[in-house]
Structure formats: C-alpha cells, structure tokens
C-alpha cells in the first residue's frame, strides 16, 4: 500500500466521472430524438483490499450504463398505434365520402330525387305542356348526373385507398430491412461484449413504425433481436433476414398484397410463388394498422355505400320504367306506348341514364280510361299522377326493409354520419390513449434537461474532487522525494 494506490483510486474516479459526464452529454444530445431512452450510469466501488490493515475499496468503477425502459409499456404503445392508425385511415376516407352525402348543407341526391318527382307533379297539372315536359327531362338529367357523380366520388375514394397500399407496403419493407440490419448490429455488438442500448431503442422505434402500417406480433429474443410476424403468422423479420411486402396489381384494378421469402436481401419478387397475404395482413376484420384501415375502406366501406346507392338507382329505374312503359305519350296521333324512361340496361349508380329513345313527347303522362280509351288524349294525366305517387310509396322492398326512396336515402345519409362520427370518436379516444402512454413512457424514459444539467454539475464536481486527489498525491510524492534529496 503506497501513494500509488492513491493515484489508482483517483484515476478510477476521474475515468468513471468522465464517463458519467459523457452519458449525461449523450442524454442531452438526444433530448429530442424519437424513441431514445435516457441512460443512467450505475457506479459501484472496486474490490476491497485489506492491505493496510483494514478493509478499503480501491476506487470506483462503472458497473453498467442502464437504459430506462419499460417493455410492457412499449408493447402497449405498439398495439395502440396499430389500432389508432387503422381508425385514422378509416376516418380520413369517411371524411372524404361524407361531403357527397351532406344533404344538410347542400342539395344533393335527396334534393334531385325530390325535384324529379316534383316535375312529375307539375306535369300532372298540365300534361300537354311543353315547358313541363322539358323541365321533367332536364331534372331527370340532373338526377342521373347526381347519381353518377356520387358513384364517381365513392369510386375515387376506393381507388385512392388502393393506390395507398403501394406506399404502405414499401414503407413496411423499408422498415423491415432497417430492423433486420439493426438485429445484425445488436448481435455483433453483443458478440464483442458491448452494450447495444441505442440499438435497442432503434429496434423498438422500428417495431412501432411497422406496427403503425400493418398488424404484427413481435417477439424479443433473449439475444436482443426482434422477430416480427404479420397478422396471418407469416414471418416478416427474423434476426438479420427480412421479407419484401409488396403489391401486385390484378384485374379488376385491385392491388393484392404479397410477401416474398426471407433473406438479406430477400429473394426477387415472384408473384406466382410468393405468399398472398391480402386476406390476413390487415388483421381480423382489417382492424389493424394503416393497411387494415385502407383495406377496409377499399373492400367494405366504399362497396357498402356503393351497393346501397346502386340499390336505390336500380329500384328507381325499375319502378319508373314499369309505370312509364304502360302509359301513353303525346307523340301522336296516335299516341304510342311501351317507352322506357330510364335506360333499362343502366341499373347501377354509375350507369343509370335516360333511355336513348326518350323525348319530351314520349314521356307517358297518359293512361287509358273508360272515357279516354287508346289512343289517349294529350291532356290525359292519369299516369303522371301514378308516377308522382311512387315518391311517397313507402312499401318499396329495400334490403333494409320497406321504405320510400327518400326514407331509404335519408337512412343512408344518417349511416354515413354515424360511421364518420364513430371513426372520429375512436380516433380521438385512440389519440388520448396514446398520449397517456406516451406520457408514461416519457416519465420513465424521457430526457429531462434539468436533471441532466444537475447530473452534469454533480459529476463535474466529483471529477474536480478526483483531480484534487491526484494533485494532493503528487504533492505528497514530491514531499517524499524531497526527503530523499
């Protein structure tokens, strides 16, 4: 035991405090880095010796640089993000659909239907009137145009969703590739006995990013690497290998989601042999991730509305044509019958159109009566009254039960409202939940500048103290050397 021991102790202290200052510096530097978990140094005293007759340590050493981290919280954030992004994708699509159905603020299909039947009422008051007949024709054209406009806007929402899948899959593949790389680095850092704290942060952040896009189950292996499987159980990332998630366009213009084999880099895409995960990648009921939300918009939300719109168009075409074709126009003499009003081939909202042969004179306002037999007179309004009455017929058999045209359409508007409201509410709740989880995570892992500055002062003073010990030891050594001289 000599003065040299003093140097050893002071030296260990200087080293340890300097490292602690480095850690504080790293924390401060990464105060705004997403996914970064603050690190703390854990110091312990070095082995005790009894060389001078009593037990005394031999200085200080850094036992570990610990990462403040809560695995359970991290898992919840991953799951919460997945659901949140699904809702967000649905909400944004529904908010694009809603304006088409916003009958409260603007005149849409409901008003067009109303005007259409109103024109029949007007015609019934003057069946031979050219103005009335022309008004009916132009209002019918507006009705047909409104149908196709709504159909177009719904279809374009669906098309945008389909196109978005390309970006989503590319994003997932990119992050999967990064994760595979991080996994490799974690393994190699550990192989040389290093502590891959920052790499673990990156791993967690990448897991979170992937889960925002698709539903995944992730497993953290004992060696620190993450294994990621898609919702359907297919492996996306395993150690240093990953698979390519990509879209493959098939007819009708639809993107299927395919997954290639594993590798680094993965094997070349081959749509013929790669796994088709379209049905499972969005999770059960397409409930997970932006992918799930986008698929739900494309495959169930938009087709659902479109089907109802088509049903309305089909019922209208059938009902009006049935009545119009038994009536008589004023295209005579003699007046003719058997003309369609709408083109019978167009029974969807996209294809509904006026019959190409229809003219103002062929609009069948007349229906033969005992006193006005075939060919009917130009002032006969019996059929116009019957067609106008279709508007109020509440016994039309719709898929949702008996209803009138207006009733069915109003229910549909209300349904769009309910769906949009539900998506907005769940998104708001999801955002609140994620915010709470984020707060908890920050509380545990976030960097506090004030805290780090305090640490900085603490370690700086300890460093100065240790340096002072060295100075003291040097003076002592000088004194002893002076005795010798």
């Amino acid at each position, binding site marked *: 035991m000599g003065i040299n021991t003093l140097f050893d102790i002071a030296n260990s202290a200087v080293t340890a405090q300097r490292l602690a200052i480095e850690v504080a510096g790293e924390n401060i530097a990464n105060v705004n880095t997403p996914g970064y978990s603050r690190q703390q140094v854990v110091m312990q005293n070095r082995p005790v010796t009894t060389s001078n007759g009593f037990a005394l340590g031999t200085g200080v050493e850094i036992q570990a640089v610990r990462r403040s981290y809560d695995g359970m919280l991290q898992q919840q954030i991953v799951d919460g993000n997945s659901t949140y992004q699904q809702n967000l994708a649905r909400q944004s699509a529904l908010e694009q659909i809603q304006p088409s159905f916003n009958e409260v603020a603007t005149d849409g299909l409901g008003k067009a239907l109303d005007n259409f039947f109103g024109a029949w009422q007007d015609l019934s008051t003057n*069946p031979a009137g050219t103005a009335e007949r022309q008004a009916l024709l132009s209002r019918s054209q507006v009705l047909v145009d409104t149908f196709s406009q709504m159909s177009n806007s719904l279809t374009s929402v669906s098309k945008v969703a389909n196109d978005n899948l390309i970006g989503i899959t590319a994003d997932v593949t990119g992050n999967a590739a990064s994760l595979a790389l991080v996994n490799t680095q974690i393994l190699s850092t550990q192989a040389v006995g290093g502590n891959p704290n920052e790499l673990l942060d990156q791993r967690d952040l990448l897991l979170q990013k992937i889960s925002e896009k698709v539903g995944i189950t992730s497993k953290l292996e004992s060696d620190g690497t993450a294994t990621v499987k898609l919702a359907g159980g297919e492996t996306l990332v395993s150690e240093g290998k990953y698979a390519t998630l990509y879209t493959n366009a098939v007819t009708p213009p639809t993107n299927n989601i395919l997954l290639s084999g594993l590798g680094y880099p993965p094997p070349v895409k081959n749509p013929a042999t790669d796994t088709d995960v379209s049905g499972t990648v969005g999770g059960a009921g397409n409930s997970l991730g932006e992918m799930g939300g986008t698929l739900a918009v494309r495959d169930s939300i938009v087709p659902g509305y479109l089907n109802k719109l088509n049903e309305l168009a089909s019922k209208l075409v059938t009902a009006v044509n049935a009545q119009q074709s038994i009536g008589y126009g004023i295209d005579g003499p003699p007046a003719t019958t058997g003309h369609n009003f709408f083109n019978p081939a167009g029974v969807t909202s996209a294809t509904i159109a006026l019959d190409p042969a229809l003219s103002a004179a062929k609009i069948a306002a007349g229906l033969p009566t005992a006193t006005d037999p075939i060919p009917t007179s130009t*002032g006969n309004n*019996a059929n116009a009254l019957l067609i106008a009455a279709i508007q109020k017929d509440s016994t039309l058999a719709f898929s949702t039960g008996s209803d009138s045209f207006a009733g069915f359409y109003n229910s549909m508007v209300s349904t769009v*409202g309910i769906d949009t409201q539900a998506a907005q509410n769940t998104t708001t709740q999801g955002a609140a939940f994620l915010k709470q989880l984020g707060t908890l995570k920050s509380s545990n892992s976030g960097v506090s500048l004030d805290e780090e500055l305090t640490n900085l002062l603490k370690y700086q003073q300890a460093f100065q103290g240790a340096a002072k010990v060295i100075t003291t030891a040097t003076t002592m050594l000088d004194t002893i050397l002076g005795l010798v001289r």
Partner: protein
Amino acid sequence: MRVTPGMTADNAVYNLQKERAVLDVLNEQVASGFIVNKPSDDPLTTRQLLDLQNQVSSGDQYLSNITKGSLLLNVTNTALGGMSGLMQQVKKIAGDMASGTTDPQIIANATSNLNQLKSQLIDLGNTSIGNQYVLAGFKNSAPFASNLVALGTTPVVSTRSGDFSGTNDSLSVEITQGSQVATNVSGGSLLRGGTPPAAVGTGATAGIGPVDILGSIDALITAISNNDTTGIADGVKNMKAAGDQIVAAQSDVGGRLVRLANTQTMITNNQNTLKSIYGDKQNVDYAKAGVELSQQTTAFNAALATTAKLTQLSLLDYLT
C-alpha cells in the same frame, strides 16, 4: 411521477389542439348559423332534419299544385258564371214565347236571339287557359264543334252543331298525399247532358235532367218557328232544368275551390310548424354560442399563457 419538459411540451400541444378543435366547431356554428353542418355532427338529428326538409318540400309542391288547380277552377267558374247569365236570357225568351205567335218578325227575332245565345254558350264551352280547355276533359282541343248545320224549320235556320269531342275525364291534381281534386268540369255532361247527348225531354220527360242544353235550345228554336205551343212549353221546362244544371256545376266548382283554399291554409300552417321545428333543431342560438365562444377563448388564452411561461423555465438560466 417524473415529469420531463418533453412531457410538458407534448401535453401542451395536445391540449391546445383540443381547445382549438372546440373553438373551430363553435366558429363553424356561428359562421354558418347551423348546429348540424355535416351528418357526422349529429347523425340522428340529420335524419330528422332530412325528413323535415322532405315534408316541407312536399308541402311546397302541393301548394304549387293547388295554385295551378285553383287557376283552372277559377277559369272554369268564370265560364260557368257566363253560361248561367246566358241561360237567364234563354229562359226569359222561352217564357215570353210560351203562348206562341205567328208573327214572323217576332219568331225571327226570338230564333235569332236564341241562336246567338247558343253560339255564346258554345264559345264559353270552348274556354281555355294556355292550351288547356277547361271543359274538354283529357283533350287539348276545342271540345264544342262550330260547324254550321240546318235546323228543320221554315225559313231554314243555320246553327252551330256544338258536337262534343272532348272526354268526360277529370284532370285531377294531388293536393295532399293520396288526395286528389278534379280541376275541370266535363263539358259533355254540362252542355249535352252526357256523351252521347241525352235525349231532349218532351212531355213527361221535359224538365227532367240531365238536360242536353244545346239540343234543347235547338228543339226550342224549332218549336217557336213552328208555333208548336206544346214544344215551347216543354222547352220552358227544359230551360229551367238547364239553368239549374249549370248552377249545380257552379256550386260544385265553388265547393272544390273552398276545399283547395282550406287545404292551402292547412298546408301553410303545417309548413310553418315544420319550419319552426326545423329551426329549433338546426338554428344556432347566437347568445349561447357567443357565451360559449367567450368562455372557450378565455380558457384558450389561459392555456397559451401558461404554456408560454412553463416552457421558458430551465436550469440553464441560472447556471453560470
């Protein structure tokens, strides 16, 4: 719990965003004047509002039908009024001639007068508005023919045939759901006693409706020309019944006009009620919105102020 400046910043952003959203909704309501601006604002109220809108617009359509129906009925009524006046004169001439005469001048005067009155009846029978002939049923052409025919008298009297070519249908319009009102009168039944025309009453059947008014006038002219006092007496009875027939049609039309007017009042009242319900559900209470806006603005200001203060705090300010 450990609180980091990052948490404070995230919380501030989240809460400021929430308050902004509330302010935005209030602003939208005040600016538009409506509570429900999109179906998702309140889906169930939206459904009710749309139903109300539909009812109001149906009411508007029925009111428009009633206006047009009233126009047609009023024109019909005017024509009937004219006819009624003409029948008074026909009855007077028939009465004056009841005892018969052989004076050719008087006979010529009477027949010529009756012929003129009949002509005017036919003209009134062809009353139209636009291309709609109010007594023609479903036809859009003059219902009573104006071609000249000779009556079997000496000297020969030429008169307009007055053959009815219209139909006996009613041009009905819908005035409330499922309820229709005829806006015309059948000319055939009115002036010819039916289609084909009823037989001219003689003897026991004289003065019993329905009366072929135009035919009976022809018969009267013939009777006067031939100084046939029995025929003239039958004619007097027939003309009285004819006058009644037109008055009956007048009161029928009058009744329908009253029905239209009543329905119009009812629908108008109904529209007012519906619109006021709609307003209750949809119109913004500006006072309430204003107070809420002011409260939210205060809260938002406070949030901004505290955020600005808190984010400035740092130990760095005190380290030298």
